[in-house]
């Protein structure tokens, strides 16, 4: 991807199937120029993860993904010694003196690379996605600090492993927990929110070009109406796209009450939400036109 200007970054992202708004394009641009990690926050389903994927497509870099979860530790994120292989080495060595074996078994050969290590050690530049960082605990965040500011990892037995190429790092968070100041300080911050009407329509049209424009507009309006309600889980962008595809399959020509009730489960996925949406939005839609005769 040519990273000459913000507009070029935006175009490249669009070609990779991601319509970035001004701030997303600018922050992606800055991330590449300044070599700083990006912390992306926002409600679920606004395309935080997708941004990282699009960046990797647009820059032709491999995507290395670390999905965070409660209880994730260094062994699963950074590296682990392959102790089975080490044991085999010791057994196979038989009569070797201890010094030799000791030097041997703590070698790159016995290292199992986990995503973070992989991203650092990769000879090609990569895009590193650390997804849902808020799911981990603070200790893990602290461990990330070295990686994020210096792009290096210290292994006691081997020494430092520094990145040979600068990875683009994207961290996403659903804001379920306040991240530490230290982590935020090292990142550029990007808040992604639900897109406006026009932009969401462009997104839907980009992914389902066959959908008639009028129907797409209607769909986006209805989704916006639903998001305005106080729901447990408001529909995400991905769900709007799914809905658009469903409507295509159903061969619907307009979103009337009947089509809406049939396909509502694509975008609303909570029992209580379904009732609320049916009650508030369903009634606003037109009755289906009955065939004459």
């Amino acid at each position: 991807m040519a990273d000459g200007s913000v507009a070029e970054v935006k175009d490249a992202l669009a070609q990779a199937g991601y319509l970035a708004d001004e701030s997303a394009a600018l922050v992606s641009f800055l991330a590449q120029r300044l070599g700083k990690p990006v912390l992306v926050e926002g409600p679920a389903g606004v395309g935080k993860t997708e941004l990282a994927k699009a960046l990797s497509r647009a820059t032709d870099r491999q995507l290395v993904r670390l999905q965070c979860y409660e209880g994730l530790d260094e062994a699963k994120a950074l590296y682990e010694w392959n102790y089975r292989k080490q044991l085999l080495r010791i057994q196979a060595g038989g009569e070797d003196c201890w010094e030799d074996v000791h030097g041997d078994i703590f070698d790159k050969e016995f290292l199992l690379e986990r995503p973070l290590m992989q991203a650092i050690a990769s000879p090609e530049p990569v895009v590193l996605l650390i997804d849902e960082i808020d799911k981990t605990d603070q200790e893990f965040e602290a461990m990330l600090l070295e990686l994020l500011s210096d792009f290096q990892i210290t292994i006691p037995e081997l020494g430092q492993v520094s990145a040979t190429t600068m990875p683009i790092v994207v961290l996403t968070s659903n804001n379920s927990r306040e991240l530490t100041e230290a982590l935020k300080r090292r990142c550029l911050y990007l808040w992604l929110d639900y897109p406006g009407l026009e932009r969401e329509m462009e997104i839907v049209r980009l992914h389902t070009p066959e959908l008639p424009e009028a129907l797409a507009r209607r769909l986006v309006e209805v989704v916006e109406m639903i998001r305005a309600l106080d729901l447990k889980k408001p529909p995400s962008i991905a769900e709007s796209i799914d809905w658009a595809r469903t409507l295509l399959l159903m061969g619907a020509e307009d979103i009337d009450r009947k089509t809406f009730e049939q396909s509502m489960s694509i975008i609303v996925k909570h029992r209580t939400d379904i009732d609320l949406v049916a009650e508030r939005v369903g009634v606003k839609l037109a009755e289906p036109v009955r065939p004459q005769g």
Partner: protein
Amino acid sequence: MPSPYGPKAEAGPPGLAAKLLGFCEELRSEGVAVGTSEILDAFAALEQVPWTSQDDFREALAATIAKSQEDRRLFELLFERWFFRSAEAAAIERGIDETAQRQAGGDRLDIDELREQVRQAIIEGNEGEMRDLARLAIAAFGRQGEGSGVVGVDVQRIRRTLGLSAGTQAPAEDSAAEQVPIDRDQLNRFERHLRRELERDLIERTSTLPPSRPLAELDRALPTNPTQDLAAVHRAVSQMKRRLATLGHEQRGRRRGQSIDVRRTMRASLETGGVPMHLRYRPKRPRRPEIYVLCDVSTSVTSASVFFLSVLHALHDSFRKLRSFVFIERISEVTDVFEHERDFRVIAKRISSEGGVADVSGYTDYGRVWLEFLGQISDELDPRSTVIVLGDARTNGREPHADVFAQVSERAGRLFWLNPEPKLYWNYGDSVMAAYERYCDGAFECWTTRHLENFVNVVAGGVPAAD
């Protein structure tokens, strides 16, 4: 900081760097944590983007300086103000006066034509156009009698003269063409331009800058509008849920505060000939988050009770074992209401209509509330339960019954008090906070979502965030 700025005194060192530093200083004074590394990043980022585009400039600054949504909101508020003021200060300094040019085009304009142009610009969302038209409109109408001098009044006057209103616009009878209705946001944007230009006008005429004030606390504090900040409360509460839920996990594997299971240790010691080589620990039982929330809904906490109810509302979304009570003179359980109703407004209405908590006077009677609470559910309180009281501890001179409160505190595992008043006002007047506070595991002032987050932090065993 809020000293009136004179036109010359506030010039400061020239150049953008100084202005930016001043801006960061202002952000800090509003409580945004801007570190030196952030400022360095901001300068590095500015090297990469063209300064001539306001959007790029602002986004680059925001991405490097404002690191949360809340910070971002403050950033937006201050950015507008700071750079507007800076530009105006520079204009005064250099004696730039645009009044003359402006009036040249002013009066020749036909009002109807102007109205149509303004509508067009608003609908298209063209910021530059709106700004120019706002100037024209001020020149056309604002000049007569120099306006009222109060910016807000002038904005509304001009808006009315232009016949602009949000929503279903009643079209003038003679214009047959159907008009696209303007929505509130779009109109607000135009009003903002009007306001800005009127302020500019005022500064030009008096050639002084009005004093800069810190943002009103209300601008950023108490969510009085339930739907507006409900999301923020929900976020804090879901954090709380996560923290309470992970409390046990944090201690796992660290043997923190574990007790030795003597029987199993002795049993294990048989292997080593009676020498207890391997200690056996009692397994830790995770705390069941069983929560009782008591919420004051009397008139003395009216402004806060909306906030409290939204806290309750959010708590109910997050915890299964939660029982909630509201009280004024008597106590009434409202767990059912919250469980069966999702819409916040309906809940608020149902509680005020069927809570049945006001008896005669409508003044809070804390003493009686404790007695009733203890009578109703004392059997169910156990050391694993947490009681949270939301109230101002103003007894209206009645018997506080702190001893009964002490009993509640004794039976419950933990007891927290959230007071909607600033700590300064505690124990003044009829507030008996001190009497209750010593029986609480923690008493917190809580009138913003930030306080709520702080409370969550402390409950979860973290350090209280600095205010």
